[in-house]
């Protein structure tokens, strides 16, 4: 079922947490709400669920206005950041909760509930843990139980708040792919909140980026990564370093250097250049757009090596990913070129 937030604004007292946000999730899609803390992403998720009321705007579930529909009747499966499992109930009772609280007429029989619990525990790969209590589970197991509990009520939409937030790095990576698998198998329209861009870019069909309550960009991971629409997205995604530049007449001035804009349209005035480690390559002397740079340090970053470069007086250092065979050390002066120019006015 498709879901849509239309011009959602949320104020808490004086503070505006969300300002005029539009997000559309197509049926069966997996969409990430990505942003730094305080960007309003969790609030938007809670508004979708009906746990918060928007100050203005509408929520549409399956094309129908659900803004006034109470949380119980929205048919959403919500997974909380710390899972919020019922601590006094067993795993099986947790999963069965949503079925047991149904009015008698629509409540499945006890046998049917038991069968559903078993089926869900198989789906989340936790068979045999029915009688455990949440306190007896590991973080990863709790997360799976929470997902099974949310799925038990056959929700039309799955809303996940930082689904991997409380887990350690190794478990996170395994569960990412697992969540993607579950999504493919069950086909639920899913919206999840995360502050981890790797997570969002890896598993989401589309990513919506929020900052300070505003939707900065929504698009596929490739669009977001390759074509950031705003200065915020360019700075937020891909470990970019922001360099202050000055644009004038088709050229940007970076400290002592001048770089040709090559068709990128930019109003004259102060601007920001965003440089990712992979945007820099070693260049031969005298090549167009080549810049001399001082190597401040060379460090290992996982499989790659990176050089920290100083491009000029008063500029922050930038990182460059080095080719495996590059013989470069601290103190060298190298010529580098930018493979692409990500410049935003302001």
């Amino acid at each position: 079922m498709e879901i849509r937030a239309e011009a959602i604004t949320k104020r808490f007292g004086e503070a505006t947490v969300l300002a005029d946000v539009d997000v559309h999730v197509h049926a069966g899609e997996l969409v990430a709400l990505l942003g730094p803390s305080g960007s309003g992403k969790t609030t938007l998720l809670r508004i979708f669920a009906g746990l918060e009321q928007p100050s203005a705007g509408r929520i549409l579930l399956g094309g129908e206005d659900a803004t006034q529909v109470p949380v119980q009747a929205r048919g959403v499966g919500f997974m909380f950041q710390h899972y919020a499992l019922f601590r006094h109930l067993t795993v099986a009772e947790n999963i069965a909760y949503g079925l047991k609280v149904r009015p008698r007429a629509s409540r499945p029989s006890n046998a049917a509930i038991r069968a559903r619990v078993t089926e869900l525990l198989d789906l989340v790969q936790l068979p045999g843990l029915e009688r455990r209590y949440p306190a007896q589970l590991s973080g990863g197991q709790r997360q799976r139980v929470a997902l099974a509990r949310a799925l038990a009520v056959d929700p039309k939409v799955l809303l996940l708040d930082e689904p991997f937030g409380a887990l350690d790095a190794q478990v996170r990576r395994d569960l990412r792919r697992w969540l993607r698998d579950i999504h493919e198998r069950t086909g639920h329209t899913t919206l999840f909140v995360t502050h981890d861009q790797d997570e969002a870019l890896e598993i989401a069909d589309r990513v919506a980026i929020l900052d300070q309550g505003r939707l900065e960009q929504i698009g596929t991971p490739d669009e977001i990564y390759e074509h950031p629409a705003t200065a915020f997205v360019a700075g937020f995604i891909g470990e970019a370093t922001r360099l202050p530049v000055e644009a004038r007449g088709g050229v940007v001035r970076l400290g002592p250097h001048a770089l040709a804009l090559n068709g990128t349209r930019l109003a004259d005035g102060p601007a920001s250049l965003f440089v990712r480690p992979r945007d820099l390559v070693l260049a031969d002397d005298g090549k167009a757009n080549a810049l001399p740079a001082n190597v401040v340090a060379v460090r290992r970053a996982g499989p790659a090596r990176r050089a920290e470069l100083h491009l000029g007086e008063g500029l922050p250092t930038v990182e460059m990913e080095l080719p495996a065979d590059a013989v470069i050390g601290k103190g060298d002066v190298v010529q580098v070129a930018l493979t692409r120019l990500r410049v935003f006015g302001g």
Partner: protein
Amino acid sequence: MSRTMMPETSTRGVPAPPAPSAAVTDEAPLTRWVLIGAAVAFLLLFLVLPLIAIFAEALRRGIAAYFASFADPDTQDAIRLTLLVAAIAVPLNVVFGIAAAWAVAKFDFAGKSLFVTFIDLPFSVSPVVSGLVFVLLFGAHGVFGGFLQAHDIRIIFAVPGIVLATIFVTFPFVARELIPLMQEQGTAEEEAALTLGASGFRMFLTVTLPNVKWALLYGVLLANARAMGEFGAVSVVSGHIRGLTNTMPLQVEILYNEYAFVGAFAVASLLAGLALVTLVAKALLEWRYGDALARTHRHG
């Protein structure tokens, strides 16, 4: 209302690290024995001896005299009244305590800390003052005195006054047990229940209440002990009318003043017995459900 500090139950079962020969916190043997001896002597002198004295005095003229003192109709009325007062005051405070704890723990509102402070008022104010407040409000010359007399409603020197005073002094027990626990638990489980389709009431019954049940029982236990044992506030509003407005603690005083020592101590032994039962039940709760209770024991 002294409370014993609980042992840290969370460390139970964790093997102690091998102790170095002289830890910095170790005292010299002499110091240790003097300290332990002082504590034990104090305990004997001020707690155990008086307790023994109560039962010894009550049984001085034999078992028959002890039970005969309960045949006194005034004493029976006092016991009945005490049970009645507790039966009204304790459930009301359960309702109030849950409501107050819910409001404090799950909502933000202006004046919240002031509200929490006011919950503690009955702990910090003298019981006599607690009683006097109601006399000033509902007594013959009190604020509502004229109105009450005109409508022939008796509160002071009658059972309603005793119930009011008892509610007042037992006000904080349940709320204070629940507030820290509910605050710590937050609202996520309640929200989860709502998203799964539970109604507000259903959520309360299946999530909120089970999560606080032991703390609630603990609070009820303490509130009940206080409700039955309260002397000061009740004494002020009671009027000491025999067979009508005398609770057990007041009956003890009256009998004692009339040199009916066996009767006085017999009734006192019931109260002491209640205290012992409360103590045992409390210890059991702490032992069995210490994890759920321990957090609430920051207050005295």
